[in-house]
Each structure stands twice: as structure tokens, then as C-alpha cells.
């Protein structure tokens, strides 16, 4: 134990040897006028935890277009209001200061990112898909049987996404002839 951290610095000792022995003084009291963040919300919606597959109910509290708190939903017969450490931390997931909220683009051979606007990036991606599909298209196999496909591009992801999103991914990519559409369920 280092010299600066003896048992004399233990909180309980400091309390009983200090002026507020019972710990009921002002320092330990919440102000009378404190209000729970959730009570200031102008909107509450029912949601579902985005981490594991238990599907715990969440209540999402928002104010002025910003999420201010996420709590367990006591109505849920699955979770009865509880959330685990991850679910409880999901406000940080949504409001993370490191969250990347603009499009980034890395040119071939470049050492740095650069910025693009969303529409331009989506246009460029559409061009890449059309080009790769054209270059790698397979009408038939070596026996002349119809394949009608491309193995030129692939997809991974979906287990964290909504059913509606997976539906559009499978539908569009299949219509493009892409086969290698995969997600975490394989892993």
C-alpha cells in the first residue's frame, strides 16, 4: 500500500471522524428541486435493445430531437424493465462523441480519408456495382447451364439490422444476380 493511500483515507473512517458522522448532511443530500431526466422528455417511444437476441424492451426518452435517456421497459413480459450493462449503456451508443456521422472516402493508394457528400458516395457505389457486375457476369457454366449471376461482389452483415432492411438487401442483391450474401448467422 502506498504512503498516500493508507486505511486512514477509507471513506468510512473519514466519515466517522469528520463533522457529519451519520452522513446525513448537505453533501449527501440530493437537492429538493432535482428532476429525473426522463421527466423532462418531450417524447417517449417503445423500442428494443440492439445488442443480444433476448429482445429486452427499452423506453427511449427524447427532448428537442435528441435522445436523453434509455431505460428498461417494465411492460415487457420478456425483460420486466431490466437491462444488462450493454442495454443500460445504449444511450452512449446513440450519443457517442466518437460516432462517425459523415461519409468518408479513401481513394486507392491514399493514406488518408477525405469527405464526400452522401448522394455522391451513393452514386459512386452504384457505379461500382454496375461495373463489377458487368465485368464478372456469368450467363452459364461450362456445361452451358444457366447461372444468371455474378460472384464479383459480396455482402456481409444483417444480424444487427431490421428484418425490413434484410429483406431489401436480399431482394435487391438477388435481382442483381449476386449470390454471396451473408451474415453473422453463418459465423
Amino acid at each position, binding site marked *: 500500500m502506498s504512503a498516500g493511500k493508507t486505511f486512514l483515507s477509507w471513506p468510512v473512517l473519514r466519515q466517522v471522524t469528520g463533522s457529519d458522522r451519520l452522513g446525513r448532511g448537505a453533501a449527501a443530500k440530493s437537492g429538493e428541486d432535482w428532476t429525473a431526466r426522463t421527466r423532462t422528455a418531450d417524447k417517449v417511444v417503445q423500442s428494443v435493445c440492439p445488442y443480444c437476441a433476448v429482445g429486452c424492451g427499452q423506453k427511449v426518452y427524447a427532448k428537442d430531437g435528441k435522445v436523453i435517456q434509455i431505460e428498461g421497459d417494465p411492460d415487457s413480459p420478456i425483460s420486466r424493465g431490466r437491462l444488462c*450493462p450493454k442495454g443500460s449503456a445504449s444511450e452512449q451508443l446513440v450519443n457517442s462523441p466518437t460516432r462517425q456521422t459523415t461519409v468518408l472516402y479513401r481513394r486507392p493508394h491514399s493514406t488518408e480519408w477525405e469527405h464526400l457528400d452522401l448522394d455522391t458516395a451513393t452514386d459512386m457505389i452504384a457505379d461500382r456495382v454496375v461495373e463489377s457486375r458487368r465485368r464478372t457476369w456469368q450467363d452459364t457454366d461450362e456445361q452451358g447451364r444457366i447461372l444468371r449471376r455474378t460472384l464479383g461482389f459480396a455482402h456481409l452483415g444483417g444480424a444487427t439490422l431490421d428484418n425490413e432492411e434484410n429483406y431489401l438487401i436480399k431482394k435487391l442483391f438477388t435481382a442483381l444476380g449476386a449470390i454471396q450474401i451473408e451474415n453473422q448467422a453463418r459465423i
Partner: protein
Amino acid sequence: MAECHPVGFQWVMEAKRKGARIIHIDPRFTRTSAVADQHVALRAGSDIVFLGGIIRYILEQEKYFREYVVAYTNAATLVRDDFRDTDELDGLFSGYDPETGTYDPASWAYKGVEEYAAAGNARKPSADQSAHTDRAAGDTHGAAGAVGHGHSQTTRDETLQDPRCVLQVLKRHFARYTPEMVEQVCGVSPQDFLSVCEAVTANSGRDLTTAWVYSVGWTQHAVGVQYIRSAAIIQLLLGNMGRPGGGIMALRGHASIQGSTDIPTLFNILPGYLPMPSVDDHPDMTAYLKTVTSDTQKGYWTHAGAYTASLLKSWWGKTATSDNDYCFSYLPKISGDHGTYNTVTRMLDDQVEGYFIMGENPAVGSAHGRMQRLGMSHLKWLVVRDFQLIESATWWKDGPEVRSGELKTEDIDTEVFFLPAASHVEKDGTFTQTQRMLQWHHKAVDPPQDARSELHFMWHLGNKIRARLAESTDDRDRPLLDLTWDYGQDGTDEPSADKVLREINGWQVKPDGTPGPLLSSYTQMKDDGSTAGGCWIYTGVYADGVNQSARRKPGSQQSWVAPEWGWAWPSNRRILYNRASADPQGRPWSERKAYVWWDEEAGSWTGHDVPDFPADRAPDFRPEPGTAGPEGIAGDDPFIMQSDGKGWLFAPTGLLDGPLPAHYEPQESPIRNPLYSQQSNPTRQVLKRKDNLSNPSADAPGAQDFPYVFTTYRLTEHHTAGGMSRWLPYLSELQPQFFCEVSPALAAERGLVNGDWATIVTARSAVEARVLVTDRIRPLTVNGRTVHQVGLPYHWGQGGKGAVVEGDSANDLIGLTLDPNVHIQEAKAATCDIRPGRRPADHQVRGMVEDYISRAGITVETGNTLHEKGDQS
């Protein structure tokens, strides 16, 4: 379960409070073990011996639920005379071809169905399919398994005495899975093992049920599917399927991983577990349906034509007509394994140009991280959609291979797009949780700046690609241009998730081809083009025109089944095959376990849940022998999706590695297989590549260089590859660093010090971790020698931008050897070395790994022999 699904675990604790006994079987001691009545530590990769031992105990002690087993399972069904089992062929089933490493499953069929089988199913991989990488016969089955030709009329001996009946086959097959064998292979004492057997059997029957819960600790093996089959056999023998408090619960690890399997972003299936068409078998829709179902089998899969036609009508609308097979030819054809690991090897071979990654982090989360990252460096373009700059987005700048100098950023010509994603509170939509329940989540706020949902991205990407090809006359573009793609919302550029969910649910098609009333049940689907529906098992989520997934009647205001919270597929049934919760006469097995029963007066099934059975089918109903389809389901055939209406103790079709589970050692193992000369799954998918080497096993030269078993796992405070947890301060503070769990004995043997560093080495990589010396990991005595296990959580990665914590990635240690049925990697049991101290600097790690490879004499052939000839074969 307490560790990775903590809130779900509250129900286990509720059960314990009511007297349930909780048994935790796991190589490591976790927060689950801490509150369990019994923790059984076993060697990673040995579970089939443990489960097979329980099956043997049930059979030998005659503890099976005889009335249930005779009526509801295929125990009485006779198997073909020429079927040969592993006990006769030293670890192989009949039909094995050592040249291709595959089985011809014909001899596994039921007796008396030979004439039907000849007409269709029993297919072998074609000669040009490599046994190692392209095998995909299993991929052509969808989830119905293979077709059950002739299964509407099987030969049964309900005395269970015929030596060819399934029960007798089972007895012989599992005879060698003795308590002594369990001790030898798993490292579990006979006392501990028998106490599990006694608890499980004593707690099953009319008045009691036992539930089994598993996660990827069972699936991520080269024989993973058979792990689950083993549990299925136990539960069927004990009468625990289709009953409250019973079943086998797959605890899935992502918010909608169940949904992404039902509406699959998977290469081998279409929505609702219909197979993707294959070039070998499916030149047209008629041929396709012949391999999905048969007019000589029972059950609802015989309506696959209606499900398929409705799906195609959803996708191609008015263009899809009976004259053109509803545009069946628009579907691309598969020709083997196109799974994610196959795709990565094709990237490395410069055969893939582009890659979309949406909400996934393969650089850290997929097996063999080095192959993942190097594979991406061969792409022309990469699109990553996520919240944070995860490692899969930045490997070209700061990944381990860039840090080591192996890759130079300036030399990498991959274009990388990072698109910010919307979070769950910034969009409407449904997740399907682990019990098949869809829950709608409401949008609370707009996503920030350029962040958008995947729904937005896919819709606009589709619009842009369609605009580019709008004038095309090329036939290849018809599927794209004829696609129904109208998801706009009131003229805005926002797509509507509600519109998509309605399409998934399906509707009547009006004579003019436009959408009519929404369907309420998949039984309304037709194969004549008069209905559309994007995923037949989800039909009913919009029953009565109401979004049933958005229902949120408080749990406190409804029954314990809580049917009015969300919506579970199919038809809002909360327990599948719940006809089995009543006896053959339709009465509850006991009052305590009453769930669904026959109401004689009303002439229908009723109960606490939606009956999973034709509503008015009386228990004593017997169809004319040979009647196919739903009409062929007898009043005592609870398994209405099975081709014979029975639960399958023995799988006569559908699996590629055998009709019964047999224990094989993992690709990398410290011991020879004590059960058979055949060491590992003879049909496993090996990827013989210089970048995917395996450690030698057992007594092979070089095995001593990798003497320990390791397994990987999750912690409560992190989520998979860390993309949603390592960037969060709360969670990172709780679990800041990559660590390895070792026993005090292993620490002493290798000089590992608690809190110091250790380096873990395999033929793939070397990683460093903080040492946690703990009694939670116990050395086991296996095959007469001590086997040490090392536990590794896999949440950390190198690189990425802005993560609160980083560290080496456990998945870099894992090689690619796959289960033949589903192409999942063997990530839960492998061998390693562990040594004290940090690994060498980034640019010297490869050198260390190469030293191990050369010292152990490892080549691309090491560990990859599929068929090991024993004395008897």
C-alpha cells in the same frame, strides 16, 4: 447464459426459486456456473460424447418416455437393411466415398421407400465438385431438410423390438458412449456425469420437463450440427419437445440474427427457408419444387409451391405469371459453397471486386482475422456501414498487417467508402428475437448528419442502379428492372419500413395485379399467382391489417404466455409443435403441464397458446395410408413440418455427415479419438491453403508444440467484435483489456504470472493478453493425461479510430475448418501454445509464427486427412 444473455437468465433464476435444478456444462466457470446447482467442466470439443452418454443412459436404463416416443417420434420406424453404422465401420456410416470425402446417403433411408427415393432425392455431389471447397448438396435443401419421398407411409414396429427400428439402431450406436468413455474423452468423473443423467431423466415425464439451452459453444465446430442433433435426441426420448418448460433453446447473439436467418442474408436460402436454386438441380420451378417437397410426404412443406409463387409475386409483381413460372428463372443459381469463408478465400485469389459490410466487423469478429483483412486488401472497392470507424473500415491504415509492414498503405489500391449508419432509435422496423418473436421498434429521433438506415441506403442504391440500367435491353437486367421497388413515403426520399413489412406479410393480388387485402395466415397462400408474400412464415404479422409486431399489451395484464406482446412466427405460436404437449388422445400429459389440448365438445384444439396443428383435426383421426400433405397428418403426428409427422431421433435424409451424431475430435486436438479410428469428421470442409495451416494433433509429430486446448467466448460487458461496446466508456471501463484465463497449474507449468502478459500462439498467429490465473479454469484428465485449457474472450481488435480500448484479437488465432452441412467454422475448440511475456513487436510476429510452423513441421496437408483408415476398415 447469465454472462451473455443476462436479462433472459432472470427466468432461469425464477425457475430455480420454484425448485428447478440448474446444471451448467461448460469448459469455463462463468456467472452462470456461480448460481447453478452443478457446474460440469468438460473439454472443449467433447460434447457429443457427453450427450451421447446421456442418450445411452436413457436407453439402457429405459428412462425414455415410452408413450411419447412410440407415438410422436420415429423410434418405431424401420431403417433400410443395408444401413451400416459407425460401430460396424469404425467411425464411418455406410455410403462413404474416401475419394470425395462425402456420403451417398441412400442407405440411411427408411425401409420401404427405396422406390420413391430413386425418383428424386438421394443425390451425391457431382463429380466435378471438389470434396473440399465446393460441396453444397446440403445447401440445396433449404431448411426442410431433404425431401421425404414415401414418408407418408412408413414401416413401423411399435413394440420397438425389430432390430432395424430406429430405437434399436440408437441403442447399438450409443452403446460405446459409456460413463467411462465420458470420463476418458470429456474429463468428467462418472459421479458428476451420472448425477446429470439422473437429474435430467428424473426431471422429465408427464409432470416435469427439462430444457436445454445452447449457444455458439455448440454450433462452432466441424461437427456442429450434430451437437444440436444430440440434444434433439435427448429431448425427444424424454418427451420434452413441444411442451412448456421443455425444448432446446438456441440463444442467439444479435438483436435480429434470428430475423436475418428467417429473411436470410445467407447465400443458400430464400425467405422462409426455401432453398436458393442450384444449377445442378433446379433448371426450372417444377424441378425446384420436386427437391423441396414430394407428393408422397406429409405436412405443410408440400405447400412449398404456394410459398414460392407468393415470394416471386412479391418480388416481380405483374411480370410474374403462371406462364413464366412467376419469373423463377430470374433467380441466380448457386453451384456450391458461396459462404462467407469461401468468399474470403476468393478475395485472396483476386476473384471478388466489391464487398459490402453492414453492421459487422469481420476484421475482428470472423475467424482467421488475418485472412479477413488480407482478403479485403485484394478488393477493388469496399463499403462499410457502421456507427464508428471499426477495424474493418480502417485496416488499410492501421491494421496489424500495416503495422507489421507486411502491407503498405500506399500499395493498397482498394477504394473504401465509410457510410454512417442510423441506430435502432433512429428508425422504425422489426427485430426478431431469439424465440422467433418480432418486435417493432419505433423511431424516436432523426439520425445525425449523413447517418441513414440500411433501409434508406438499399432503397436509394436500388433506385440509382435501376436508373443507370433503365434503357438496357440486356436480358440480365430484366430481374432488376421488373423488380417491385416502391417503398417511398408520401413523396419524400424516406422509404417506409411499414410498407416493407406489409410486403413481407403478403396480400391477395387483385385481378388488375395490384395489392388487395393483407393475408392473415400462410395457409391462405396459393400457387396460382393470386397471392403475394415475401416470407411465408411471417405471414400473419399483419393479420387483420394490424401491425401485430407493434403490440405492447403490458405483460402484467395478460396470461403467462403473453401472446399479445409482439408476434411470433408462425401464426403467433410461442411454442413450436405444441400438439405434443397433449397425449395421443389429446389430453394434457398432466394438469401441471397443460398447454394445448383437444376440446371434444367444440371439436377443436385449444389452450394457452395458438395450437400448432390443424385446428379441427381430432386426435383419433387417421388418414388413408399414403395420404400426402396437411391432409396426411394423423391426429397423433405433432411434427407437422416433418415429412412423416414424427420427431426425428434418426435423420434419414437432409444431413451430409450422418443420420446420427458420432463423436469426432476437433481438427486440432490433444488426443486420438478413443471411440473410432476415424479421428475427425470425415466430411468436414478443410481449406488446404498456405495461409490456413492447422496445428498437428494427438501423437502426430509437432503436436507437442501446441499442447493446450483453447476456446473463445464473450463477456457480459462487451458485444462480439466490439463495434457497439469498445467505443463506449462505461463498458470499456468495466472490461478494459484482452485477457487469457489459465489455471494455477498451467500458470506454474509455463511460468505465467497473474496480471502480467502472456503470448498465445497457433499456426495462424500469435497474440498477447493479460494473464488471469484462476480456479475457474480446471485442468482435466483426458485419455490418462492432463489437458490444460486456455479461455479467451474475443472482443478486442487492433486499429479502428476512437475506440476507448484496444487489444489483440483472439479470432486471429483460429483457422478455417468448416462443418459440411452449414459451413460454420470450428472456433470453439483448437490447440495452442502459451508462454509468458508479450509477443514480439508487430514486424516480428510473423517470424515467431513461422518458427513454430517450421519446428512443428506443418504443411498444408497437416491435419487435413479426411479418412483415417483404422485396423477394422
